[in-house]
């Protein structure tokens, strides 16, 4: 468990670093495109496509980081009114379900990737589509892993081996 938690933290740090890098690059590139288009009536041919793929990367990396902080959107109508330990028990169930779904989503998107690789389609210059979409299966796998660590943590709380977290009203 200790090892898993360390890996979880370490991965989150890596994801955050990549996220910052991509968002920063996207910010500059998107602005440069507007300036080029409006002031010079030109623009980088590959610019818009690259920006859109960066959004894909930023979105998936953000979702991975959000998973470590229980930041996903869900209906929390009922769970607001139950005791922390029962809630942790419920979390074991819901997060386990999330692990399974993300695993299948990763599998499905890997299938998409391989079919694109076989088709040999390219999204920009000579870069194949599968490179741009690589973040989809990898992202789902990372999210599945973070959910798995949440399952184990909730299990520890539910079985009374660990104190429940202090507050959990989510503010994005």
């Amino acid at each position, binding site marked *: 468990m200790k090892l898993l938690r360390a890996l979880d933290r370490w991965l989150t740090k890596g994801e*955050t670093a990549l*996220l*910052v890098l991509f*968002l*920063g690059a*996207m*910010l*500059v590139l*998107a*602005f440069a495109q*507007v300036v080029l288009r*409006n002031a010079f009536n030109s623009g980088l041919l590959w610019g*818009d*496509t690259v920006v*859109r*793929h960066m*959004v*894909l990367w*930023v*979105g*998936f*990396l*953000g*979702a*991975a*980081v*959000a998973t470590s902080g229980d*930041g996903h*959107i*869900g*209906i*929390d*109508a*009922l*769970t*607001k009114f139950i005791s922390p330990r029962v809630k942790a028990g*419920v979390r074991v*169930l*819901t*997060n386990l*379900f*999330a692990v399974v*779904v*993300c695993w*299948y*989503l990763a*599998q*499905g*998107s*890997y*299938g*998409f*990737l391989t*079919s694109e690789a076989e088709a040999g389609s390219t999204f920009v210059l000579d870069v194949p589509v599968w490179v741009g979409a690589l973040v*989809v*299966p990898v992202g789902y796998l990372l999210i599945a892993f973070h959910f798995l660590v949440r399952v184990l943590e909730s299990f520890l709380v539910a079985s009374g081996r660990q104190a429940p977290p202090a507050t959990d*009203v*989510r*503010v*994005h």
Partner: protein
Amino acid sequence: MPTFLVGALLALLAFLGAPLFTIIGAVAMLAFGAAGYEPSLVAAELYRIAINPTLVAIPLFTFAGYLLAESKAPVRLVNLARAVFGWIPGGLAVVALLTCALFTAFTGASGVTIVALGALLFPMLLQESYPERFSLGVITTSGSLGLLFPPSLPLILYAITSQTSIDRLFAGAFLPGLLLVALLAGYGIWVGRRARVPRTPFRVQAAAAAMRSAVWEIPIPVIVLGGIYSGFFTATEAAAVTAFYVFVVQVFVTRDLKLFTDVPRVMRDSMLLVGAIFMIIGSAMGLTNYLIDEEVPAKLFAWVSQFISSPLVFLVVLNLFLIVVGMMMDVFSAIFVVVPLIIPIARQYGIDDTHLAVIFLANLEIGYLTPPVGLNLFISSLRFERPLLDVVRATLPFIVILLAALMIITYVPDLSLWLVRVLGVQ
């Protein structure tokens, strides 16, 4: 397993708090499987929507909003608004409504407004001897006010989901948004007069000083609103310019935020929200296409039309339904799950797409305040350390006003359509 059992199980998981994107994803994959398609098609749909040009606006606007919220811009904007509107009776209440609406438009009613601005405005309101219950109500209500103003994230997401023009939505939602603010401001002025809140006389010098200190923030609404409404920028271009401008101003000009410590933190915080939204988009798109292929909206309409024949009655039922949706779901999930189903039905009743969008979002705005699960109630209760019931009681008069506004919005379609016609946006 029979279909209804699977459905019941998934619904149970959803109500127990399973992340909504996993529920939608599971439904999409099961539906694709049952129809004999490859599950990789879900990913193909995701990839197709991910490279939608309008989507670029979401991370950029959200980042800009979070940067503003983390800098000292809220203090400067509140000071400016006070110097300009402080002489009105109930002026500070009006200031609170206006500044909160502006921030919510950027950050999408996700709690940031109450946390960033409420903490600033709530003590100010108490200090100016507004009744405590009223002050709590204003701040809680303001947390979702502004949903109808550009560049509100729910508006952008609605446009993407419904595949309608974002410019049309921006134009259509503006006047209804103003109506909500105006009615609430009227109530604020009335309370301010009754509580004999001291009025600060208007002083040119003070106003000029406040304007000078906020001189870098004043152009932001001009870039966003002016750029979009004049047609000079697309929503995506406005997002790129706004995000870059706010970044440069807050980091290099006012130096409120440090490049290597604050900026990465704000980037991370803002992209958590974007990531959470993105996951829902990812699974919802596959599901939506499946539902449309299976003609589910048409079947729903056939069923509904047995009971309802008049558009007026349909709108009443729609409002009741949407308020319940708003009580259970947050605005983002509701958009992806509910919008694809109700749009084809509303069209059958002859309701304009833009009008429907405004009704939808106004309802969800109220849903943020309705017990038992309105998000704003919980954030306020936690942030200001007041019992949940006190917060509920404090927001009741505001809910009544918002419901009245909703009636006007619903039954005066021209409020939503007039500006669209005048600006001639497509």
